[in-house]
C-alpha cells in the first residue's frame, strides 16, 4: 500500500501555510476494517495526511535540511466521518517554529462542513543521536512531492517559486 495520505497540494506558501486535498475512495483497503459495514477513512490516517502536509511545510521552511518527525498530537477533533466519495480539503498553518521543533494547526473540510481540527507538533531528530543520514532515499521525497503537485504551486512569501532543492 502506498503511504500517501495527501493526493494533491493546491497551495503552498513557504513558512506560512499549505492547502490540498485527499480523495477518499472505496478502492482503499484502509476503509474496510475500521468500521465494518460503514466504510470510512480511519481518523488516524487523516492525522497522517495532515502530518504529511504539515511535515512538508515545516521541512521546506528549513530547506529540507532537518529530520522532521511527528512528535505529538496536541488536539484531534473529528466532527464527522470521512466516507468514500468525500474530498477532504486540508489546510495547514504554521503556528510556531523553534530550533528544536514546530507546531502547525490543521483543518479538514468536506465541502463547507468542518470535518476535523488537528494540532500537531513536530520535532527535529538530532543527527547521530536518533538517526544517521537522511530519512529518504535520494530522489524519493522529490518524486513524492512531484506526484502531489507540490512544485506546481509552491511559492515563497513574495510569490516567487521556491528554490530547486537538490538535497531531496
Amino acid at each position, binding site marked *: 500500500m502506498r503511504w500517501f495520505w495527501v493526493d494533491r497540494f493546491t497551495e503552498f506558501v513557504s513558512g506560512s501555510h499549505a492547502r490540498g486535498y485527499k480523495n477518499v475512495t472505496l478502492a482503499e483497503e484502509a476503509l474496510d476494517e475500521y468500521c465494518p459495514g460503514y466504510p470510512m477513512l480511519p481518523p488516524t490516517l487523516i492525522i497522517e495526511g495532515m502530518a504529511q502536509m504539515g511535515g512538508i511545510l515545516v521541512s521546506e521552511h528549513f530547506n529540507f535540511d532537518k529530520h522532521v518527525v511527528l*512528535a*505529538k498530537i496536541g488536539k484531534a477533533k473529528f466532527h464527522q466521518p470521512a466516507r468514500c466519495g468525500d474530498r477532504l480539503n486540508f489546510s495547514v498553518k504554521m503556528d*510556531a517554529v*523553534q*530550533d528544536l*521543533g514546530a507546531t502547525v494547526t490543521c483543518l479538514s473540510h468536506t465541502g463547507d462542513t468542518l470535518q476535523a481540527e488537528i494540532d500537531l507538533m513536530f*520535532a527535529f531528530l538530532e543527527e547521530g543521536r536518533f538517526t544517521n543520514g537522511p530519512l529518504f532515499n535520494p530522489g524519493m521525497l522529490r518524486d513524492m512531492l512531484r506526484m502531489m503537485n507540490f512544485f506546481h504551486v509552491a511559492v515563497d512569501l513574495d510569490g516567487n517559486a521556491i528554490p530547486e532543492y537538490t538535497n531531496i
Partner: protein
Amino acid sequence: MGLSQDEIFEKVQEALIDALGADDDEVNRGATLVGDLGAESIDFLDIVFKLEKSFDININREELAPEDILTNDDYVKDGVVTANGMAELKRRMPWADMGEFEQNPRVQDFGNLLTVGDLCNYVGSKIGGES
C-alpha cells in the same frame, strides 16, 4: 507584562494541563513535572511552545535544560555535579529551587528537579512579574 504571581500560575497551569493531560488539582506549585505530572522529554518542547505563545516570550533551550553543564567534565564527576557545577547551575537557573537536589546532586536525578513553582518563577523572571 505585569502579571501577578497568581495570574502567571493560572497560565502555566493551563499550559501544563493542555500539554500533559493532567488534572487541574494535580498541577500545584509543588508538583514535579516529571515525577508527579509524568512529563516526558518531548513534552518539554510542547510546554516551551505553549509558554512562548501564552506569555509572548522566547525560551532558549539552555535555560530550561542545561545539558551543556550536566555533560561537562569540569562540572560533573562520577555522575555527580561538583561544587563548581552547582554554582553554574544556580547562576544559569536562579529561579529553580535546588535545595533538595543539592543534597545529593546526581545527574540522573536532575530531570526530576523542576516543579510547577519553578516554572512559574522562570516565566516571572522572563516577563518581570511581581515577586
